[in-house]
């Protein structure tokens, strides 16, 4: 009994906090605060997963979103100008575009919300959170396996990683001082023999 009550109290506590955080993501005028509130929402979602008995999913949620996505967002904010300067008014086309995108998203999410039946599972079946089972079904190429999406996502991530490297790679410019073919700043291109090397 007491366990059930604790579960219920925890659920409403986490849900309410997550809602408050989500609202402050949207309404905060400071970008970094919005990012931190987003971190709160994602971490609290992991809390909901734990309440549902899906510990592995909760761990992955925190690992990917808090440790990866939000850190990336904060990095991007830190690389751009200070959030104090965020005062310029958006132009009319931009505001219209933003409103349109927001409206489309609202329609989509409310369609999903109202079309799902939200039936409570009263059978009392416990969710099995078995990492071994998850791993097996990820690599299973039978009718219920997920090996094809898994491989497609792997290829996609590999392509994204290679693309990132290509964009970030330094292109050697021999006429400029302090650039070289190597990755050491200010050093000559040591892959060339000494006679052909251009003195910087």
């Amino acid at each position, binding site marked *: 009994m007491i366990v059930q009550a604790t579960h219920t109290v925890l659920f409403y506590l986490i849900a309410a906090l997550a809602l408050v955080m989500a609202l402050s993501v949207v309404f905060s005028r400071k970008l*970094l*605060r919005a990012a*931190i509130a987003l971190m709160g929402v994602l971490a609290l979602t992991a809390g909901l997963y734990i309440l549902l008995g899906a510990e*592995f999913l909760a761990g992955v949620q925190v690992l990917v979103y*808090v*440790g990866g996505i939000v850190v990336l967002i*904060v*990095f991007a904010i830190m690389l751009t100008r200070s959030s104090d300067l965020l005062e310029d008014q958006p132009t009319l086309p931009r505001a219209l575009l933003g409103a349109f995108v927001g409206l489309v998203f609202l329609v989509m999410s409310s369609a999903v919300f109202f079309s799902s039946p939200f039936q409570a599972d009263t059978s009392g079946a416990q969710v099995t959170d078995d*990492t071994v089972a998850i791993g097996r079904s990820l690599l299973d190429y039978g009718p219920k396996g997920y090996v094809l999406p898994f491989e497609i996502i792997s290829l996609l991530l590999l392509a994204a990683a290679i693309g990132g490297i290509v964009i970030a790679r330094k292109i050697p410019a021999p006429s400029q001082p302090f650039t070289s073919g190597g990755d050491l700043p200010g050093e000559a291109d040591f892959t060339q023999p000494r006679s052909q090397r251009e003195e910087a």
Partner: protein
Amino acid sequence: MQNAMSMILVAATGPWAAKTVAERASESLDTSLWAVAAYMVLALLAVVVLVTLLGLVLIYAERKIAGRFQCRVGPMRVGPHGLLQTVADTFKLLLKEDIIPTRADQAMHLLAPFLCMGATVLIIAVLPYSPTMQILDLNIGVLFVTAVSGFGVMGILLGGWSSNNKWSLIGAMRSGAQIISYEISATLALLVVVLFAGTMSLRGIVESQEAGWWIWRAHGVGLISFIVYLIASTAEINRTPFDIPEGESELTAGFHAEYSGLRFSFFFLSEFINMFIVSALAATLFLGGWMPFHIGGWTTFNNVMGLIPPSLWFAGKNLFVIFVIMWFRWTFPRLRVDQLMRLEWKILLPIGFANLMAASLVVLSNFYFFPGK
């Protein structure tokens, strides 16, 4: 005499009845709620005492070891052999004024140290110290540890950004870049042990090393991943030779330059506790945790080794790894940023991937020393 010896041996060879505080609490849930509350208080108290003691001991040890490495004696004035030096320093820190820079983002400035400290304390609760000394054993233990350390990164980034100081910002950026780079190698090294043990639960990993520790049972694969883990996690906790985020000669103090008093001590303490966590994980995953030094099949030898209590085994291994990390700090010079990135992306990462493949071959062919059960 003979009788006493055999009794001791029986006591030593009995199976380790591993039980966590959380399990005891959930058992007493049906009988008495007060017992559950008592277990909760006990767990909280244990964490608080452990954090305090670790802070005192590790900071004192660091200063003494630094002294020895530099041919000095280290702190000597407060208490016998300077034993109370850290206590005095703690009081000094608590009495200091708590300064928030005028143009800082106040709420974020206050939040950052708590994020760092919170991540650290959450990890302390899942470590297995001995069969009966563990607060909670998660079946996603290793994943939990890697995931929660993400909050620590956020604390550092936030602290550096909200101080509104260019040195803090640069320090935080360097620290963030360093941590998320080296996290990959550290996780690859941890994955090798997860592959060997077949479980992510920390207790399960310790129990899987009954026939021998993973560092030597897998023909060098375990040793390589131990070394990779040690290097990568030294970088993750921002210690020399990877301390460019703090680099006092160029960035004053990096991300915590604008912190003082209690909040500074939170950053400082969480750095030292993180060192403990790294060595505890290294001891648990590669050196057998609380498992005594066993060699599969050598029953008498194993019995003799079993006479030493498991918590002492854990403490000994842990202190050894902590000493090695401190040894790094007072021996190696600081790396440059480009050297740091090259070490990770061009050296450690390929080694980590190759090692993971070798480990999966070892696991597939069951090619261990003492394959056991």
